[in-house]
């Protein structure tokens, strides 16, 4: 009956059964879909766990790969992956944050130009990772002369996650209530101070969340890294060394190395565990940022 208020055209008085079936259908669909998805997810995760768990122990994490990765561990792979991520974040985060601040705080003044930036970011977000790989190879490895290196890979990933970081940071900044902007302006506080001291700390959870998404995407990346950070599974000594990222390792083990599957699953398990760790760390950081006790800087 009350639905008639919202569906004047479709509702007939006393047609409750219709709604009963409709409600039941929606309800069952939602439940079934959720259970299906979670089921597939558990299946996937269980599969990886079942096949990978026996491989993963402390030894696996701290030893070097042997026999093309069939045996041995993945220590250098983890180090390379982390270094690539560090480079990517160190570049993408400041750049992304600055761009996001421009888009959210100055968008009105920028007009068409800012809209152009927005559009190009949307496209950038959709550029296939393999294209980033091609670009990174030609631009960073060859043109800039960085060769196959962790630096090239990290910079390529930075390009790739930049739109994600920017868009999440932008929406985070936009969600900061205007009253703080007005309050700061009314005190004669400059825009730069407002952004740096008030808006960015206030948006910290969103910024961290965006960064997490970026890291997740970057960690899982294969296509862009084969052509940039390379294939060398030795412990890197610097970011100028070539280093094999964990997803490249997984790909090589499954597609190119006979008998590599067990270690591939082990590595996949480690990768997922790393993602969980990073995710929880980010959540913790975000919460801490919210109710932190600021020092008298």
């Amino acid at each position: 009956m009350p639905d008639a208020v919202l569906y004047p055209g479709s509702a007939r008085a006393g047609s409750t059964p219709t709604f009963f079936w409709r409600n039941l259908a929606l309800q069952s669909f939602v439940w079934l879909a959720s259970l299906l998805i979670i089921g597939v997810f558990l299946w996937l995760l269980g599969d990886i766990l079942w096949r990978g768990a026996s491989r993963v122990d402390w030894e696996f994490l701290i030893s070097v790969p042997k026999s093309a990765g069939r045996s041995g561990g993945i220590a250098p792979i983890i180090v390379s992956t982390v270094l690539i991520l560090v480079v990517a974040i160190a570049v993408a985060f400041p750049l992304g944050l600055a761009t996001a601040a421009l888009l959210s705080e100055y968008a009105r003044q920028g007009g068409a130009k800012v809209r152009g930036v927005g559009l190009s970011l949307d496209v950038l977000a959709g550029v296939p990772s393999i294209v980033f790989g091609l670009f990174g190879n030609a631009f960073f490895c060859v043109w800039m002369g960085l060769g196959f290196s962790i630096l090239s890979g990290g910079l390529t990933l930075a390009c790739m996650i930049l739109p994600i970081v920017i868009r999440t940071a932008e929406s985070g900044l936009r969600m900061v209530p205007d009253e703080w902007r007005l309050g700061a302006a009314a005190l004669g506080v400059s825009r730069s101070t407002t952004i740096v001291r008030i808006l960015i700390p206030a948006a910290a959870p969103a910024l961290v969340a965006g960064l997490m998404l970026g890291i997740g995407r970057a960690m899982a990346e294969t296509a862009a890294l084969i052509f940039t950070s390379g294939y060398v599974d030795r412990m890197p000594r610097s970011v100028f060394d070539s280093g094999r990222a964990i997803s490249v390792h997984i790909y090589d083990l499954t597609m190119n190395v006979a008998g590599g599957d067990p270690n591939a699953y082990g590595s996949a398990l480690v990768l997922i565990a790393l993602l969980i760790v990073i995710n929880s760390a980010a959540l913790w950081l975000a919460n801490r940022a919210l109710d932190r006790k600021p020092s008298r800087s």
Partner: protein
Amino acid sequence: MIREAALGLSFATLTLLAVTAFAAEEPSTAAPLSGQLTITGASTIAPLASEIGKRLEETNPDLRIDVQTGGSARGVADVRAGLAAIGLVSRNLKDDETDLTAFTIARDGVGIILNTDNPVSVLTDEQIVDIYLGKIANWKDVGGKDAPITVVNKAEGRSTLDLFTNYFKLKNSDIKASVVIGDNQQGIKTVAGNHNAIGYVSIGTAEFESEQGTPIKLLPLKGVAASVENVRNGTFSLARPLNLVVKAAPEGTVKSFIDFAQSKDVRDLVKEQFFVPLQ
């Protein structure tokens, strides 16, 4: 706080950069072999070359051998362009590649594989050609079950494909493939997961996988069993050399690496990667 963290992070990276830049310019010491050697090319050989490199590094701590994967064509191109000192090429050099010199470090056979559920155990060369051309599309035509044939072919540019098409005098565009694959293991996984598939992969890995219980079997060619042994003694004809190629006469580190890769010291590594060591 986030800002500080970001600053810290950037600073750490910069420091890292500075330190490593310094480290990279460190003069080499008096060890027998030093410096960096870049090797690129065939994904088939890359794991082997990588292992050989590691073993050579063990005795020469200042030597760094970086192996990058790709394809034979990339090995050739990178050596020509000077991007790599040594290229990995998993086939004989072509007529237009005479500017390069090849050093064979191992041999590899390519064998036809079927799923173990497939009752067919022998195919003639003509039957294989007809299957790949789509003239035979059902296993019952060659004595098997009544089931459509899944033809697994390699992607364009792979040297395994070159070898296969040359041997059977096929033109790639005439092949009616149902699945096109990239690397070797994808072929094995595809055939293992499909009762009616036919594919061709590296014999050594196929033997290994078969021993491990993967449901695939190798077919003999012209009556010769596809085995590592028959590749070694030369009776199995669908085989190829695994080559290191260089532009100029090798010297210094390059020569040492090539010599080492051809020596007895790495036989166990060659076998470990399921290739056939040189006689």
